[in-house]
């Protein structure tokens, strides 16, 4: 018997196709998917359809209200087109979100599978570190980190990941712990497979459902956190636009130019709601216990 048949016996492909069907019959999840797709298409195609470049400064057109002078979302205090900046910022904010998803999910999965598989002292130490990271309000830790780094998109993604990997670690650890004593893992042990093989080829694939759910929710969380720290001035730095730093400074013009605050905030809310809805839909789809 080879390792592949061991995996096949656990019967996951069948469940996964059922999960896909359940996901696509969930109306809210589809709405979420639609929101994310629309926003993504807008952010990547939008800039090519607009008459203005996101860095083009026109001081005669400062604070143009939405819809005037060909600026669909108006202009900012430097006369730059908000729509162009919004779409460009969307590319950056979503890229940060996906980078965080990849980094945080990888780190969290490795920590989770190692402590779940080995248990004992290894798990005690690793999971206490997880608890410790969870004890900080992530915005505090994030700002403390952000104040000392070169704030490019890559570093921002790295530090957001540093405050986002713990949930995945906890989920994977719990999942692996419950799988560890099942027959197919016993069989893998008897076949003499290495610990690394069992962890990453047997245990991890079987915990894939919860990991995918957590990863989706991580994107939502990362977009929010990027917005928080960029709004406070410690995130992605202008002239590079991000949804968060477009809101930085919007407060002082709230009375005269409210669109500066409204437009990027709506974009963030749509993106985050979209990813959250998808994550919730995936959770329902993978959860074999709940009905529907």
């Amino acid at each position, binding site marked *: 018997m080879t390792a592949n048949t061991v995996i096949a016996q656990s019967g996951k492909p069948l469940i996964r196709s059922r999960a896909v069907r359940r996901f696509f019959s969930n109306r809210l999840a589809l709405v979420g998917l639609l929101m994310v797709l629309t926003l993504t298409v807008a952010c990547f195609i939008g800039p090519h359809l607009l008459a203005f470049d996101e860095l083009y400064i026109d001081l005669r057109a400062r604070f143009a209200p939405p819809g005037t002078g060909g600026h669909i979302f108006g202009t900012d205090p430097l006369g730059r087109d908000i729509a162009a900046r919004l779409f460009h910022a969307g590319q950056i904010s979503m890229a940060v979100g996906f980078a965080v998803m990849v980094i945080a999910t990888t780190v969290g999965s490795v920590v989770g599978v190692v402590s779940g598989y080995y248990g004992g002292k290894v798990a005690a130490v690793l999971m206490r570190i997880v608890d410790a990271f969870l004890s900080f309000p992530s915005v505090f830790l994030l700002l*403390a980190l952000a104040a000392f780094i070169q704030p490019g998109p890559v570093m921002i993604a790295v530090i957001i990941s540093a405050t986002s990997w713990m949930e995945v670690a906890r989920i994977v650890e719990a999942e692996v712990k419950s799988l560890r004593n099942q027959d197919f893992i016993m069989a893998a042990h008897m076949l003499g497979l290495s610990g690394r093989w069992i962890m990453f080829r047997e245990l991890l694939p079987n915990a894939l459902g919860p990991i995918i759910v957590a990863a989706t929710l991580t994107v939502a969380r990362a977009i929010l956190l990027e917005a928080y720290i960029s709004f406070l001035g410690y995130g992605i730095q202008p002239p590079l636009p991000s949804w968060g730093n477009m809101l930085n400074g919007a407060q002082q013009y709230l009375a005269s130019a409210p669109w500066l605050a409204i437009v990027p905030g709506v974009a963030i809310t749509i993106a985050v709601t979209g990813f959250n809805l998808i994550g919730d839909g995936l959770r329902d789809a993978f959860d074999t216990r709940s009905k529907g």
Partner: protein
Amino acid sequence: MLRYILSRLGQSLILLLIVSFIGFIVLALAPGGPLSQFALSPGMTQEQIDKIAAQMGLDRPVVVQYFDWFRHMLTGDWGTSYRDGQPVLRVIGSHLFATLLLMGTAITISVTLGSAIGIASALRQGSFFDHTAMVAAMVALSIPTFWFGLIAIYVFSLNLRWLPAGNMYTVGDGSVLDYARHLVMPALVLALVDVAVWSRYMRTSTLNVINQDFVRTARAKGLTRRRVLFKHIVGNSLVPMVTLAGLQLPLVLGGALVTETVFTWPGMGRLFLDSLGYSDYPVVMGLLMASALLVLIGNLAADLVVAFLDPRIRLD
């Protein structure tokens, strides 16, 4: 019970040690560091910088610095602020009340409102109300707190002129009513996310209880709907929520930081940002510790309350 309390207390202390170590390392390894401001001033020689480092004890290995700091912290000496030379603990203490007032109000709002929505949704599972409430909760979860604050200021302060746009009280007034008027908006803004989280979990928790045997028994023995609801369902579905209240603390505290910034609320969040701007490391470290301490105490309290309510847990 005593044994359970002691073991949880021990765990919390170990966690505090790890937490403070992580915080210390993060700040110590940061490039720049507390001496970078001197390096920028012209006429400063490396020799002078080294001298200042030696005076401040920054030339020692990080681990030695950490244990020195930790020993002092346990005795209540959290260092002195670089900015104004005041003891860190006093600086934090003078901002603690504002944050606790804001957080306390927000948590009270979210617990009452969130529980009510969650229970109502669960009792009418699948109804129009249930769907609307859960979609609303999802959107509320996804709105950036600071942005919601900006919109609230735009609507209620700038346009309707109902409420003040910031600060904790009007200079020269300071009556309870004046505080309340300043508190309403930031507290509601901060509560928004938490209401959403709370109502979602409360709904799940209530659904779990509704389907249990003892609820059926209570109904079968002819108790009124109201009695079953308040005596059997609400009480039991609140137990797991106590733990959640503890786990939610970091989120609320993080939310308080941005809410305070938007509403110029004189709490720990504003202090944190100001101190970061001034590279005031002792205060930044003190605030990281204070926030983690608040979270640890909250979680400990939540666990003890749950153990008190549910005897099964402390017997484990």
